[in-house]
């Protein structure tokens, strides 16, 4: 294991970002800025183009010449049409609450188990932990066929239960959380144990408060994955009212056909929640990805 998973120790750059003896306008520096600018513009362009299209009338967006601003000027028609059709808000709500439930269940089950693996000595601990760690290599795509068959048997096709429950399995998160719990000093817990606190009590009032950063990191990672998940929700949900945002978009895009402005308005509306979240919690999200990104590797 590399040291990458550790919390990044931030080097403090001098206020100008220059090291002593460096020229402010060296050739290398200008070149670096130009390459960075080029990359940043390239990476922002597709989103900017989507926004520009979404603010045009369908007639402007769907006819040559291709332009950033339609001849009829800026209009929010595409957004009012999309929102007026009523499905997008329902799908956004479905995405939000199902992702929240998936995140809660995943973090709760993984944290409890990881704590037991780290601290408690019980029969079968080692083989069980080994089995869970080994499961990290199983690609979810391999399980799709038998899982669907199982959901047919359970009568869970086209239900929220069928959507949520199979997404609550995240063996890599057990590994990450156990590694964190292993580093928590045991003395704090022992003091509480001496005072007669039960294991659950110790976990709840001593360990969890200490684990907030790692719990946030894991929650962020699981939430983003659940919010953006496509394959399983697409398979299991057919009812338009139960769809999540990514699935709804996929089914409606064929129905909309050549209404480019509305397509882009939908894309932007679907993208907005996580982008806004990112703007508010940039630091936490970046740290979360950096700590959980390597998964169980």
């Amino acid at each position, binding site marked *: 294991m590399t040291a990458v998973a*550790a919390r990044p120790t931030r*080097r403090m750059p001098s206020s100008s*970002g220059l090291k002593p003896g460096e020229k402010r306008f060296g050739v290398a520096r200008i070149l670096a800025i130009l390459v960075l600018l080029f*990359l940043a513009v390239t990476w922002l362009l597709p989103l900017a*183009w989507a926004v520009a299209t979404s603010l045009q009338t369908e007639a402007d967006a769907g*006819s040559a010449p291709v332009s950033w601003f339609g001849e009829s000027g800026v209009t929010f028609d595409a957004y009012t049409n999309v929102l007026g059709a009523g499905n997008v808000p329902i799908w956004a709500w479905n995405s939000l609450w199902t992702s929240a439930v998936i995140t809660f269940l995943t973090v709760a089950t993984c944290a409890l*188990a990881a*704590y037991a693996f780290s601290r408690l000595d019980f029969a079968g601990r080692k083989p069980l932990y080994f089995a869970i760690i080994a499961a990290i290599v199983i690609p979810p795509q391999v399980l799709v066929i038998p899982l669907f*068959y199982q959901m047919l048997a359970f009568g869970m096709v086209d239900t929220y239960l069928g959507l949520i429950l199979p997404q609550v399995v995240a063996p890599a998160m057990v590994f990450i959380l156990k590694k964190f719990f292993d580093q928590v000093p045991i003395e704090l817990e022992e003091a509480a144990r001496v005072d007669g606190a039960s294991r659950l009590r110790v976990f709840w009032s001593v360990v969890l408060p200490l684990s907030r950063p790692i719990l946030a990191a894991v929650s962020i990672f699981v939430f983003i994955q659940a919010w953006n998940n*496509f394959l399983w929700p697409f398979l299991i949900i057919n009812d338009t009212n139960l769809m999540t945002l990514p699935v709804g978009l996929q089914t409606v895009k064929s129905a909309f056909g050549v209404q480019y402005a509305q397509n882009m308005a939908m894309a932007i509306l679907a993208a907005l929640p996580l982008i806004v979240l990112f703007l508010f919690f940039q630091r936490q999200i970046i740290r979360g990805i950096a700590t959980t990104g390597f998964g169980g590797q």
Partner: protein
Amino acid sequence: MTTAAVGNRAVATAGPAADDAEATATRERPRNRENGPGWAFVAPLVVFFALFLVWPLIHGLYLSFTDQSMTGAGGAFVGLANYAEAFADAEMWRALWNTVWFTLLSTVPLVLIALVMALLVEAGLPGKWLWRLSFFMPFLLASTVVSLIWVWIFNPQLGLVNSVLQSFGLAAVPWLQDPTVSMISIVIATVWWTVGFNFLLYLAAIQNIPEQQYEAASIDGAGRWRKLWSVTLPQLAPTTMLIVILQILASLKVFDQIYQMMNQLVTPATQSVVVYIFDTGFTGYRFGYASAISYIFFAIVLIISLVQFRTNARRSA
């Protein structure tokens, strides 16, 4: 097996000899065991794990030896017939080749561009958060959103890319319609979408390089480029190895972008293994055969994962 025992404090404190003696003397005595709380803590996870991972894994293997249909028909044991069919199936081999092709095409830029981005952002230029935001933002989008945007950008008549090409006097390219370029177009969209993830992993790795290494290099008179070649890049080698393997594993699983950007059509030039599994199972209803292909795919992923574990183990040894 022993690797799972990391952090076992009982073993760490008692020496091996003492442990043995105790084991022979009181084999049945539970030493400070907490079976009750232990199992209570892991029970919720075990339930989910057993129901939605272990069981489908076993059942999928069983299905791969049957002619089970999604409609409920069939289900008879057919032995290795599905596997025999798969190895003789030209469409399966093509899907496999397409997947490998996509993996090769996507992994190189997804690692190299991420590295360049991270090195430049950490080079001490102003506006760090803005660069970070630009590169990482696409990763937060759902695949459907990415596909919607890029299908529009690649639109043959009204798309942004072709209009730029034409303004330079170049010919328009049928990005998604021409089988010879459609995979490349999907790779371009994929690089844009997911490079931010590798970029963040590299950022964290660069920030973890001890500052003393740079100071030592400075004392030795190393300049900016020298430090890059002799300190930063060597320090990033293990991270790069990890990112490359994770990227290969991720790219092999490609489904969303292909399925969505090809408008849910199965095209010979872009059909990946997972698209083929999906198509066989849910359009052809052949659950048995689709399970067999799933397991062949799983075997490939497993081999690559094992290679990674080996390199990991060698590095930490």
